[in-house]
């Protein structure tokens, strides 16, 4: 047991040379897709995600319309070439769940009641994956929504958090994932105090 254990932390840093709270490099490009209402290309280390926002536009099918507010549709999709082994294309249980939690991260900041009966569609394509694609996707989607001119209370930021040898670390590397438990959180600072917000 003992001899099989890997050394994961050296001199207060991770093996990749990053400190516990140090993120890998970030790159953000806005307005990369001409035909969308808002778009963003987001890189977090080796995670690469592309988000496109369409709308608010008419909701189809009609019976999914909400008479009081806009409906946010979120589609997270991984490209077949985004991982080392080919990912079987198309939606699966994993991507459906990620789509749902990502939508719930963005829902509370969008002023959906300003656009009744419409749909705001967010499409996130993961082009390259290195653990934490959903967080890259949420960040990309949030910037793309702002680019589309959609009224929001704040930009949503998102980062993966894990534990290495008892130390809480931000933005983990895929190589370490097999032996380590992780979880994702999204910035939900606004959820707690919704009803006090006034807007004009």
């Amino acid at each position: 047991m003992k001899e099989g254990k890997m050394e994961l932390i050296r001199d207060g840093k991770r093996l990749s040379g990053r400190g516990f709270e140090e993120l890998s490099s970030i790159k953000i490009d806005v307005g990369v897709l001409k035909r969308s209402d808002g778009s963003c290309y987001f890189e977090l280390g080796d995670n690469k995600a592309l988000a496109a926002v369409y709308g608010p536009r008419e909701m189809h099918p009609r019976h999914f319309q909400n008479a009081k507010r806009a409906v946010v549709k979120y589609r997270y999709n991984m490209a077949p070439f985004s991982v080392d082994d080919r990912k079987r294309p198309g939606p699966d249980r994993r991507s459906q769940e990620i789509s749902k939690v990502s939508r719930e991260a963005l829902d509370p900041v969008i002023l959906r009641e300003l656009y009744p009966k419409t749909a705001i569609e967010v499409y996130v394509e993961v082009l390259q994956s290195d653990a934490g694609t959903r967080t890259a996707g949420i960040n990309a989607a949030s910037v793309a929504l702002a680019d589309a001119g959609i009224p929001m209370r704040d930009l949503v930021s998102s980062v993966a958090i894990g534990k290495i040898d008892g130390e809480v670390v931000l933005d983990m590397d895929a190589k370490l994932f097999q032996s380590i438990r992780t979880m994702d959180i999204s910035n939900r600072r606004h959820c707690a105090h919704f009803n006090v917000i006034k807007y004009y």
Partner: protein
Amino acid sequence: MYKVVVPGDFISTEVNRAGDGTYVEDGNVYALKYGVVDDRGTIKVVALSGKYMPVNGDVVIGKIVEISFPYWIVDIASPYEARLRKSEFGRGENIDFGNMCEYLDIDDLIVAKVMNVDVMMRIDLALKNEFKMDGVGRLIEVSPTKVPRIIGRSGSMIRLLKDKCNCFIFVAKNGRIWIKGSSADMDLASQTVMKIANEAHTSGLTDRVAHFLDSFKSEKG
């Protein structure tokens, strides 16, 4: 100089002056949209993009997408479809199910006024006096948030465009712009409109556009 903000950015503590595109929380004014801050009068955030939301009295350019007696369904570049009632043609006209398309057919473009927007976002249109566009000239579409810039303060920009391009230019509130003139004039006009739309968030735009039009003219002549 314009200050660019993104959603959630702190703008000011003057809660009483908070206007469009902002929200108030804990005694501070924050931005609701990605855009530029305008703090003459109330503090507003003028968005750089976004969809057209119809307001009573707006004059818009619409396209007939469907005929559904007694309405024409009109696309006004907004998340919602608008309706035009057959009675807009006056009582004297005998319009019925069969001959509606003789008055306005699918794909026809019209100039119309937004008469009423209800809570269910049903939009009623009224025809303007010269409503038919008859396929003359060109239609270009920009983001409706750029319309105030294309018109300019008290119409300065649009006057400049009309003078220098020698065109009939009509800017509708929903971001559709109708240009009529000779082919070369229309080319210049649409190019200039696109330039204004792309640089809408910068200051001193009217002067730059005037310079652009002059340099173009001198190149040709």
